[in-house]
């Protein structure tokens, strides 16, 4: 069991590194055309960040369900 939880932590760590990379590469430098209000640009950045968080949580939920179900079955 413990191995699976260690793997879960490792997967979380990798997802954090990858997510950080996506934020730095895509979200940080993201700008709409210059005549658009910066607040709208910030709003779009928030939406992208929330979308990334959703994918992160969705992936972790799948991993969690797999670990728990495989454990209960064994």
């Amino acid at each position, binding site marked *: *069991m*413990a191995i699976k*939880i*260690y793997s*879960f*932590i*490792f997967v*979380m*760590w990798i997802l*954090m*590194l990858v997510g*950080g*990379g996506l*934020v*730095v*590469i895509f*979200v*940080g430098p993201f700008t709409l055309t210059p005549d658009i209000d910066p607040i709208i640009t*910030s709003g779009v*950045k*928030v939406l992208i*960040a929330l979308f990334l968080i959703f994918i992160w*949580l969705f992936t*972790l*939920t799948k991993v*969690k369900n797999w*670990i*728990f179900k495989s*454990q*209960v079955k*064994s």
Partner: protein
Amino acid sequence: MEEKIIAAIIVSAIAFVSIYAFTPVLIKFLQKRNLTVKDVNKPGNVMIPRPGGISILLGIVVSEITLYFFFPISEILAIIITSVLGFSVGIIDDKKTMGGWFKPLALAFCAAPILLLGAYDSNLDFPLFGSVKIPSLYLALVVFMIPIMGNTINSIDVLNGIASGVTTIAGFALAISLFILQNYEIGIACLCLAFASLAFYKYHKFPSRIFPGDSGALMLGATYGVIAIVGQVEVIAAVAILPAVINSFLFLSSVKKIVEHRKIKNPVKHTDDFKLKSTDENHAPITLVRLLIAKKPLSEKQICNEVLKLTVFSGVLAVITAFMMGVKI
């Protein structure tokens, strides 16, 4: 550098010795006034004094104030005030159990000193990829960080020694990371937290002689969160505490709402020899402890050791992350 080493030794000793010496006095004081709660994972009617947060408050505040005399910077002031506010929220909850939303909301206000003192930098640093400047988003991160860390430590405080043990290991990992990143003042401030938790762990470990209560757990979490912000090591701090984050994530993803943990179905039950085993209740939340005992029942001490081993693993990942901060691809 010599001054920093002397400061580190003095404040670490103050944090450790003050809690180590004061906690037995606090235990007797609480027992005399019948301020005890039942340890539900022990056979019989074992009553444990609570809240030990008073002792943690003493150790952290005295050592951080001493550190402030060495380095009078706003970041250390922010750590002191936020820690005291975190304790205050917890002691209210210790006296009277509040609703599920009370702690996150009240802890969000604890972030005010960080914002008012300007003790933050709106750059969010990531390993390998560099940093990103997100001024508006970062303000939200500051406000969310303290409630998240506070509740993360509080929700893992379910068995003897876990909250203080996890904070000790994560605190040392974060302090090492801060030293690697040459942020010495905040690294020393983090040593205060790590040594304070270590001294409290002596009395909190299995079999517990005192419980930290919400005041202790929330203060440990709030202090950890504010150090992560003022030290600009938010990602590393999250990595170091991953087992506790997983516990909160598992809980929230199965309960699907913010609720006071005392009001939910217990995810574990006891065997005849008082080991812990997973409950058969379908609606009980999945937690880290339930995951650990899903296959076979374990004793409380075995579970605590497993959680601490997981924290050591995530602490190592945190230190690796700190080294990766200096590498750019």
